[in-house]
């Protein structure tokens, strides 16, 4: 695999992980707030 592909996929993965982590935590907090 060419190095630029690894660079691109790493950057995408970091952004995707950051997005997934933050949104899921926000949704979880909202769910908890509604149930309490």
């Amino acid at each position, binding site marked *: 695999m060419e*190095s*630029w592909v690894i*660079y*691109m996929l790493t*950057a995408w993965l970091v*952004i995707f992980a*950051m997005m997934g982590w*933050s*949104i899921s935590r*926000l949704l979880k907090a909202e769910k908890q707030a509604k149930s309490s």
Partner: protein
Amino acid sequence: MEQPRDQWATKIGLILAMAGNAVGLGNFVRFPTQVAQNGGGAFMVPYFIALFFLGIPVMWVEWVAGRYGGKYGHGTLGPTYYLMARESLKPRSALWLGVISGMLAFSLTVLLNSYYLHLIGWSAAYSWFSITGAYFGKNTGEFFVQYLSNHAEVFLFWGITVVLLAIAVGQGVSKGIERWVKVMMPLLYIFAILMVGYIFVLGSPVDPNWSTIDGFRFIWTPNWDYLGSHLWEVMLAATGQIFFTLSLGMGIIQNYASYLGPKDDVALSGIATVSLNEFAEVVLGGSIAIPLATAYFTKIINPSIVMKAFAPSPDKIDKTALLQLGIPKNIVESANLTMISEYLNSHWNEILQAFSTHKDIGLQAIGRTFGLGFAYTSLPNAFVSMGDAGRLFGALWFLLLWFAGFTSAIAMYNYLTALLEEDLNIKRSLGTWIVLIIYFIMGLPVIYISGYMDQVDAWVSFQLTLLALFDIIIAVYLFKPDNFWRELHEGALMKVPEWYKPIILYIAPILLALPLVGTFKGFISGKIGLAPWIAIITMFIIGAIESYYAIKKKYGEELEKNEVIIKV
């Protein structure tokens, strides 16, 4: 008795609205243009540095400031920053910082919209051109130039956009914006993901020398040589793009965050907003316009575009680029435009061959010539290749692009109406029409004065950075770093790492101040013409008067005594 302020109905609604505000033409239009103009992979390195050291910290600062202002019933920057500066300064001194901040935010929002709404209008126009098949079978570069020269058409699509904006904003914050964004945002993401998938399998539709993969390689191969030789310029471009794309340095984020409750999270929400936007920008925006521009390069470029990019006038000849394209040294050195043009026309096939080994120069040519029109010259080719189905897909894509710009514009429009409503007691319905008139007056020179758009855009980048610096000086230093850190963690759903403290306190302000110092001289020595200066100064005056009046109205007594009286 004052009415309680509207608040966001749901947290995810707020995040989608924030992202809807940040995700816009900055991602799909401005980002690929900046990448193409600044050496591809050379741009991405400072871009990620700016994201980490400036984008994320300033996003937190603006969320904290917004929520703090909301506690006092303010959604605008002038009074909010007066209150924050008051923590270290006497009210009369804090007043001036509030006035300057409010002035910068007001003028920036108006100036930016004077041309941003035109870009949204272009998207509406291209949606229409897709349905009618107007650009099918034509050189898309030439078609774009032709469209811009038709002032009546440009005015029509821009005018429709501005009027629709006024109607949307008139509906109110949670009802209006949340409803619009909840539908548009997911649609845009889905369509963009489909587009990226299509681009990955498109390959080389026109010429085997030019494929979509070349575009990805251009973006993701760090071009250290280019970065080394254009360091300052590329860093400025990357910093400006981060602020533009995240809607920072405008007062917009503060306005949205002012509708939060005092114990609502800002730390995690800030990260969510940044990551949603970066997904749209780096993953989606970066995978559409540039790969398409490489795949359809030969259908966009022509000798006159090369002339405009690398030899617009005898004193602005890019000799390095022309020599790399194989133009003989004696012709390049002569700086004779006619000779260069004749050589390009008579040796066009050889020039195209040279471009295929220097693809970065090719993309730079398109980026320099069309500027923000870069995406509008590359994207239509993909729809043409789909045949009749492309008309529908093209119309849908440009309509979604229009929506993306529209939601960002709603946020800015909302800021101005909030300003009239909260600071001057002007009813929202009347305020929306006042802003509409301001937008029309300020947007007209873009159509009729050549170069106006680029000059105002250059100034906007400067002012964005300036206001971001004010963010840190007032909302962190004068508000006191400990207060800021405590506010950031009030109701926070995440713990911000301690090592981000020195980044916010020391690294970010230095990174902001350096480009300001480096570029200021250029602005006062003729980079901007008379018409943009008139617009800038007029907006400064109106913004300063408005902010002064707004602060004085609510805090007149404490300003008179020069002592803090109102505290919540």
